């Protein structure tokens, strides 16, 4: 076949030993399993989210503040945000693993993790700000 593509091996080791030395599956099944578990948790949270969207469609800021000020809504929203961005990071990591090879893989993965963490934190802070804002109903 193509002579220029013939691989060269510098170390005298068995194929299996060399493959093992290059690093195995690392975290094993963890990534896959956590992606499924976050997906399962997001099923009921998404159902709740759809109901809330129907309640809030076309809402004014006042309505959203009142809605977000309720502890039950804020709790569900926090769970939704944390799990959404966690699941997003796991999913996008697989895309990076599939399409980004070589030296670009590590910086791409770190960039994704950093972005997912920051957007997730931003969402959590926004929800907390809504939840912990002084109640407007008592004042009015």
């Amino acid at each position: 076949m193509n002579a220029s593509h013939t691989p060269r091996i510098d170390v005298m080791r068995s194929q299996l030993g060399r493959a093992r030395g290059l690093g195995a599956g690392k975290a094993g099944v963890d990534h896959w399993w956590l992606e499924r578990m976050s997906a399962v948790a997001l099923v009921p949270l998404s159902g709740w989210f759809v109901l809330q969207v129907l309640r809030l469609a076309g809402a004014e800021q006042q309505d959203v503040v009142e809605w977000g000020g309720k502890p039950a809504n804020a709790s569900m929203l926090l769970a939704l945000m944390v799990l959404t961005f966690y699941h997003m990071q796991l999913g996008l990591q697989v895309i990076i693993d599939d399409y980004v090879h070589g030296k670009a893989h590590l910086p791409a993965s770190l960039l994704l993790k950093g972005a997912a963490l920051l957007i997730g934190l931003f969402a959590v802070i926004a929800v907390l700000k809504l939840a912990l804002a002084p109640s407007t109903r008592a004042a009015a």
Partner: protein
Amino acid sequence: MQDVRDALYIGHRSDGTLTRRPMSPHLQVYRFRLSMFLSIANRAAGVAAAAGATLGVCWLNAASKGPESFKKVQKVTRNPLGKLALAGWTLALVYHFVAGLRHLAWDAGYRFEKKEINEDGPVAVGVTIGATLVLLASIFGVAACRSRKKKAS
């Protein structure tokens, strides 16, 4: 060699010399199947849903900041282009949800025969389109009712 996958590409010829194994043929040699479109569409929908979620966080942030920020966001959500983006996000979320449920079923060992997968594909498309249309009609309907009520009062 940096990648462990490279190790699996190396094989021996019958005379004992090393060779690189052939790679899998590329996409264009395959006949188009619905299942392969649905597979890549799930990945694309996941990316689109993530982008939409980021916009959703902007909406939340504006609501927490105050009425003026929220007015700016409303300019986007009440704009036809904004509504189109919202519709696209809804479609992506609904499809990613439907395809995700199929994946969970497959992982649990159900509906994973070739025949079953080919049967379920068109059903997934139908459910996605139907649920998206119902959801969008409800969302825009509720929003329209609310704005009419506000004008009346």
